[in-house]
């Protein structure tokens, strides 16, 4: 029989102690912070949703690779992804699931109706919600304290677009007087058309007609024909990707050449896919839209990562990347995933480490005050910034004909 000495007992004891301590070491690795990313990745808006998810993923990877959330002991971010299926109901259902999965906050939504429904559902559980792209003004004017919008709403976008349009027209000797508005008949397009109808006449433009079309549309020939009949100086389209591509192609085919196509928040005019696939139809189309700040070195870095997977560079990616970074910063400052604390941290945020052409964030009633759109124009197969002058990399070509 082996004699049990004091020394062996001590050894055994300390070994046992070490083994018992192991789970404690494992426990020291903080639990991941779950963030809900809501995007439509099936249904009519799936393409936009995919590009949004891509931006969020790039931000998640970057934050996790840099050691996670420092204030929470290096906790990693974990994506709880929800497919809004391109409908408000789909978005709401996913918010319910995200609540069950205990997310700290939700980012995304893409389309205004989805954002409206999803942020409303999130407000029931006081989940902080950051809207990525949705531009309907009532997203942030309903008085929901959980809802924030990092980008501009369409009130700001429209007035900026019209200011720039007037500048553009005056610089060219006022060649454009008449306008046809083409818009998708959902919340986004209709709201935009109303604003344009109210503001264009005051700025010296005559609206010949406002044409609504559904999403999805099988054919845009009728819209093109009406434009041909009205022969306006300017066409202002606000549609999602597929419909604008159809319209631009049909206009080219019907030899409709207005003095300018001046899109506002258009799904295709600021999309490299459209520019690459239909260079002739896209050439000289202008757009006032979300756009990443080309002056920031980080923009090029994110763009490179986005394009590495054979994807095109879209504003959805830039906005979602920035929104996730904004949220991560708020959680860092809150030092907690407590929803009330995170909400408060976002509300007081002065976050500047994003890639959009805005200054540090400043939220008033949930709307980031510095958020602003830029004007782009497709020139020789590239998308150039023509306004604001501060970082324009090309002079506008107007009139186009």
């Amino acid at each position, binding site marked *: 029989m082996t004699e049990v000495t004091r020394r062996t007992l001590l050894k055994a004891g300390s070994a046992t102690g070490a083994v018992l301590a192991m789970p404690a070491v494992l426990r020291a690795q903080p639990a991941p912070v779950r963030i809900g990313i809501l995007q439509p990745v099936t249904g009519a808006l799936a393409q936009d949703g995919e590009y949004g998810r891509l931006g969020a993923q790039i931000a998640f990877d970057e934050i996790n690779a840099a050691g996670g959330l420092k204030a929470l002991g290096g906790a990693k971010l974990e994506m709880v992804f929800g497919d809004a299926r391109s409908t408000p109901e789909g978005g709401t259902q996913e918010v319910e699931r995200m609540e069950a999965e205990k997310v700290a906050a939700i980012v995304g939504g893409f389309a205004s109706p989805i954002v409206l429904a999803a942020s409303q559902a999130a407000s029931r559980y006081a989940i902080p919600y950051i809207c990525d792209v949705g531009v309907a003004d009532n997203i942030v004017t309903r008085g929901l304290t959980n809802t924030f919008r990092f980008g501009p709403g369409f009130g700001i976008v429209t007035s900026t677009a019209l200011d720039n349009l007037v500048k553009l027209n005056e610089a060219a000797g006022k060649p454009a007087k008449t306008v046809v508005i083409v818009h998708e008949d959902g919340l986004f397009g209709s709201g935009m058309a109303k604003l344009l109808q109210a503001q264009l006449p005051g700025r010296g433009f005559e609206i010949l007609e406002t044409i*609504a079309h559904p999403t999805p549309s099988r054919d845009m020939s009728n819209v093109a024909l009406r434009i041909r009949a009205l022969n306006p100086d300017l066409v202002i389209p606000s549609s999602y990707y597929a419909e604008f591509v*159809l319209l631009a192609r049909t206009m080219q085919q019907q030899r409709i050449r207005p003095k300018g196509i001046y899109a506002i928040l258009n799904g295709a005019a600021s999309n490299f896919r459209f520019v690459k696939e239909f260079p002739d139809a896209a050439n000289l189309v202008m757009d006032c839209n979300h756009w990443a700040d080309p002056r920031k070195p980080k923009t090029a870095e994110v763009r490179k990562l986005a394009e590495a997977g054979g994807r095109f560079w879209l504003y959805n990616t830039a906005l979602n990347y920035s929104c996730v970074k904004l949220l991560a910063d708020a959680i860092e400052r809150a030092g907690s995933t407590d929803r009330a604390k995170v909400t408060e941290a976002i509300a007081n945020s002065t976050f500047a480490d994003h890639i959009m052409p805005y200054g540090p964030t400043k939220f008033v009633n949930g709307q980031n005050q510095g958020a602003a759109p830029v004007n782009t124009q497709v020139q020789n197969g590239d998308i150039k910034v023509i306004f604001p002058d501060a970082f324009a990399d090309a002079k506008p070509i107007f009139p186009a004909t």
Partner: protein
Amino acid sequence: MLPIDIFLSALANGLMTGAVYALVALGLTLVYGVLHIINFAHGATLTAAMYAVWVAHDRFGLDPYVAVFPLTVLFFALGYALQRYVIGPASHGSDSNILLVTLGLSILIENALLAGFRSDTRSIDVPYGFSVVEIGALFLSLPKVIAFAASFVVAGLLWLLMAHTDIGKAIRAVSREKTGAALSGIHVEHVYAVTFGLGAACLAIAAALLMPTFLVNPRVGNAFVLVAFTIVVLGGMGSVAGALLGGLIIGVVESLSGLYFGESLGQIGIFLIFILVLLVRPSGLFGARA
């Protein structure tokens, strides 16, 4: 009041679009006429065919009008196999089961396409994509004119096949009296599968005619299939001539109501016609009276 050339352009455009609708409806009406079921996988099959055209162009450099020949054969074979080895056995011959199986198939195909091709909208750029045929003040899109003519050729060939070939006679026999046809030695399962194959082949042709001017994403077929249902009812369920005429009517109605009442309301015209037909002539334009 719109100028007359705009009206005529819209009319011509409606006819051309309607011809493609007719082609999509042909397959649906054929399957309904013979198997007496509504094929819910029709839209998803069209989407798959459109992707096939896209792949043929993008990966193999095949023009859609060249790709249409191998793809028609391929989709005939796929349709045949699908009915013979999947839908038939899985549904155990019961009509309600066939509905469910085709519905399940449509979800499966759509999601497989989503997984395989991602959600991006894709289109092809062919040199003649923007070519126009000028007739007076009318600029008619060349690919659409081709689609218009091709739809008539396909409908004519299908009619010839049904009227003058053994398989056509067998299809008609099975559609009238399944048991009687089986007793006289017709292999009913084979005829069902051939019919399904013909339906899928029509979709391959429609896809090739659509792609030079249209685009594809995993759900695009749905945009056509509701219209196709309406055409099938309007033309008389199971009638080839009815599908063609129904397609043209729906195309024109959609185009003109879109032009005069706005694009959003243009779709209403289709459904008004649908309701009218159900009220006034439930058997459709070419349907046998009940």
